[in-house]
């Protein structure tokens, strides 16, 4: 089915089912769709991973460049996250410069990684104040079937865990690449959990049709010790304070489950 519109009858059905604690695809309200994670598919990238969340599919590639540090953090590498809603992923995605949806997606992924201090950026400094590594995390959405946020965050984490840094030495201010690789220093594992509010109920991992029915969504990113490191509400509806508290508890639990799919310690 290539149509992106969900008929009114179907919308009503989705909403009614959810009010009884059921979902069209048979999931419980707090169930994720099946998740598949594959790391290292793109040899040219320093790190990469593809996440399939049901039919949603996101590919993340990590590349390095040398650049200047920010003046307020002269000894730290730089993280840059970008998201592309590629037109092949959905009939509603148009080519062109990033729109507000792709910018929001990139900024949610960025916030989770940045605030939880996932990358040990101080180890990416080459010459303080002058030269550091810039880590580019590029989120490439390949198929849109709902909940791009959680899929992108998970794929970004998997890609970072898969990322290899080349060995180098600095000789007279010049960076020389040496043979061999080492893993990118990773210190935390943030996982985003998105809940949709449909018919006043909270639903984990909304699919595309559920996103068309939802009043609002709430994304809560949880780091490895269960602390909350980023939150984003989206959509035209609202949440009560009670619902937000409930959502944070569900997210903490779900994040731990999802993390195990990517992090094998």
């Amino acid at each position, binding site marked *: 089915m290539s149509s992106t519109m969900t008929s009114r009858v179907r919308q009503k059905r989705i909403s009614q089912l959810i009010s009884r604690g059921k979902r069209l695809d048979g999931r419980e309200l707090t169930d994720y769709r099946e998740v598949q994670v594959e790391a290292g598919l793109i040899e040219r990238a320093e790190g990469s991973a593809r996440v399939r969340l049901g039919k949603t599919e996101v590919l993340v590639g990590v590349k390095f460049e040398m650049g200047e540090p920010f003046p307020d953090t002269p000894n730290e590498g730089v993280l840059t996250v970008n998201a592309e809603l590629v037109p092949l992923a959905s009939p509603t995605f148009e080519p062109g410069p990033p729109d507000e949806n792709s910018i929001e997606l990139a900024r949610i992924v960025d*916030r989770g990684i940045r605030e939880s201090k996932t990358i040990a950026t*101080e180890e990416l400094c080459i010459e303080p104040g002058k030269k550091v590594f810039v880590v580019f995390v590029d989120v490439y959405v390949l198929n849109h079937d709902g909940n791009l946020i959680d899929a992108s965050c998970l794929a970004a984490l998997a890609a970072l865990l898969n990322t290899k840094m080349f060995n180098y030495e600095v000789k007279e201010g010049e960076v020389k690449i040496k043979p061999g690789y080492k893993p990118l220093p990773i210190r935390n594992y943030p996982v985003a959990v998105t809940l949709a509010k449909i018919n006043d109920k909270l639903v984990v991992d909304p699919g595309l049709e559920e996103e068309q029915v939802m009043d609002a969504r709430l994304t809560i990113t949880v780091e490895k010790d269960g602390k909350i490191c980023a939150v984003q509400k989206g959509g*035209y509806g609202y949440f009560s304070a009670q619902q937000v508290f409930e959502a944070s508890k569900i997210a903490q639990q779900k994040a731990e489950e999802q993390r195990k799919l990517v992090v094998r310690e």
Partner: protein
Amino acid sequence: MFKTSRKKPEKLIDENDVRLDGRKLNEMRPVKIEVGVLGNADGSAYIEQGKNKILAAVYGPKEVHPKHLALPDRAVLRCRYHMAPFSVEERKSPAPSRRELELSKVIRESLEPSIFTEYYPRTSIDLFIEVLQADGGTRCAGITVASVALADAGIPMRDLVSACAAGKVEGRLVLDLTDVEDKGGEADMPLAYMPNVNSITLLQMDGMLTGEEFEQVINLALDGCKQSGLTQKEALRSKYVTAKEAEAEKEEAGEE
């Protein structure tokens, strides 16, 4: 391997729990709102919250351009949050940044639940927020002032939307963070709220909070929203009640 040289500018909270600007932990900056400050706009308002100075203007409901954006069953709300190049320490390029585009989106989504958009099908309500001076919490002050501008434009609403941020600075939970507190602190959570319908319409957070702190910070921010709400109502009342009284006085004077 390397030592970071990132230093907090100074101590942000002293041993008596007093903040750099002399406020208590749960104290908001003084808020001042003025209604109907722009001649051309259908509704407008100006807010000062500490050093934040923000203008909001509403045009509409009016015909939508381009026309294909019109919705058959309701009005479209369009929102632009923009910072003046001189509003921050280092000049900001006037071209909209990624941050401004994201904020425009979340601000729109925070105000739309308050508006009866279904009363004005096929029209647009255009909202412009210009930050003239920024000192932390501009999206919240922007939402607060925009909601007043919408009311000033006479657009029917379920409730005023009030916004305020709360967060964690040097281990303590604080209300209404300034720019230095935001940058030097551990967490910042902007929140927008419709008090009469108990609805949170904007919620963002960056930083690190335990589940317990998360709930406490939300409650703190909700208190701040309620306080902004009072200032909003007072501002609207003082414009419209004063105008009404002046008219009544004129009539009385005419009768004599």
